[in-house]
């Protein structure tokens, strides 16, 4: 799905988290929102997911205005930094949650839900953990379950907030490849937030460098590296 961000701004009280920013994300792209904390990257991601509403501006999905679309109707697969798994539910129930939450008329049958969950568990290469509780999983496994849960609702896009933030270096490397593979298999427009420039450069097709609520530069990793647009970008990517 093509995502168009048109002059979006967001202020909390008197502080501006986002100055009007515009951005066009082509369908099927894997995009990194890169910046230090306080750069507005997470706010932008939450606006895309419908968890915050912009103070001004519009969000367009495939040319249609989605600014006022409620979070429930947005069908954005969202992976939270803390994963936010439901700890009183098994992995299976976590992944099935979005399907079970649908109104009766559009809810798949039990057998269909089970089939889809099993398929997703295979996709994240953890076929045998359906009966476990989140507290019994490692950090890397939790992240993949959160990803599977987001994919279960057949999202129109995938949004990830610091998806590798809480993991150690080795697991992080593995899961980067895992995300790349899932993106390539599903073909979903994917946006992830990170403060790690190496991660952004290695994984994304398109990198959006942000600072202080503004976009500093948009470009392919190699272009940003070769021609940093501002002193901030030069400083940040060399860090």
């Amino acid at each position, binding site marked *: 799905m093509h995502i168009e961000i048109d002059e979006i701004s967001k202020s909390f009280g008197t502080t501006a988290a986002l100055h009007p920013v515009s951005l066009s994300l082509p369908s099927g792209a894997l995009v990194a929102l890169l910046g230090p904390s306080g750069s507005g990257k997470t706010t932008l991601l939450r606006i895309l997911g419908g968890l915050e509403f912009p103070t001004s501006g519009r969000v367009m999905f495939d040319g249609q205005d989605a600014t006022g679309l409620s979070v429930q109707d947005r069908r954005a697969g969202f992976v939270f930094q803390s994963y936010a798994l*439901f700890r009183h*539910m098994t992995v299976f129930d976590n992944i099935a949650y979005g399907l079970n939450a649908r109104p009766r008329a559009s809810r798949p049958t039990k057998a269909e839900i089970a089939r889809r969950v099993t398929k997703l568990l295979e996709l994240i290469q953890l076929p045998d953990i359906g009966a476990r509780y989140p507290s019994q999983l490692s950090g890397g496994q939790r992240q993949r379950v959160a990803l599977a849960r987001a994919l279960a609702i057949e999202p129109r896009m995938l949004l990830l907030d610091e998806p590798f933030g809480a993991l150690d270096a080795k697991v992080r490397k593995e899961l980067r490849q895992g995300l790349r593979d899932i993106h390539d298999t599903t073909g979903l427009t994917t946006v992830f937030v990170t403060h790690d420039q190496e991660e952004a450069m290695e994984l994304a097709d398109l990198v959006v460098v942000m600072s202080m609520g503004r976009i500093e530069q948009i470009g392919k990793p190699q272009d940003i590296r070769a021609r940093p647009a501002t002193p901030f970008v030069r400083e940040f990517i060399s860090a």
Partner: protein
Amino acid sequence: MGRPLIHRSPMPGLGLSMGITLTMLSLVVLLPIGALLLKGANYGLAGIWETVNRERVWAALFLSFRLSLFAALFNLVFGVLLAWVLVRYRFPGRRILDAAVDLPFALPTAVAGISLTALYAPNGFFGQLAGEIGWKIAYTQWGIFIALVFVGLPFVTRTVQPVVEEIEREVEEASATLGASRFHTIRHVILPMLTPAALTGFALALARAVGEYGSVIFIAGNIPLVTEIAPLLIIIQLEEFNYDAAAAIGIAMLLISFAMLLVINLIQVWSRRRIGYV
């Protein structure tokens, strides 16, 4: 067998703190309870059964337990609502409400008892209102119910409140991004997370209500078989110097207390094992 009874520690004061703890615990709590159990043992199971197995005793035990259950159920629902309102919403007077939740802990039971009676008696403020629709509250089981709701009010709220504070917003947001309505989120995500704490508070409120005396006797009317609670029966037996019968009823009540203590612990073990926290 390899684990020593007490691990060696560089901390000072082992003998003194252990001595004070065990001596006072024995003197104040364990020996008196032991005296009750001993009395029961002398009296014999048959004797206890004979005392308890009378219509008036069964009626009192059943009344205490049944009304306590209803009051605890009311407090379960109202307590969860109160915990949610106090943690999540900001409105004028919230701090006063929060402090007021503890009043039943702080107000002496006898004071609560006569005050509730004054309010719900036929010539009292609420009693008159209820009387207009022919509803008698004081000196009926309704009066006992209200007194038991009063004494059990803080338990569920105070156990659930910290859990509500700890719910991560992200978990609720995750539910919404997966398409769940607010109602679905509350029903399937929030309430299950509150369940272990709410059940603990429920059991505490129930235990408190079953043994409650001071706030109930004034409003109850104390009619045998109808509004006579179990603790009152013990007092009546004692006033007639009928120690065996008092002990028998006391042991029956003690067993109910122990059973409820066990339930509370089982709830906590269960929730810790399942969810990884209490």
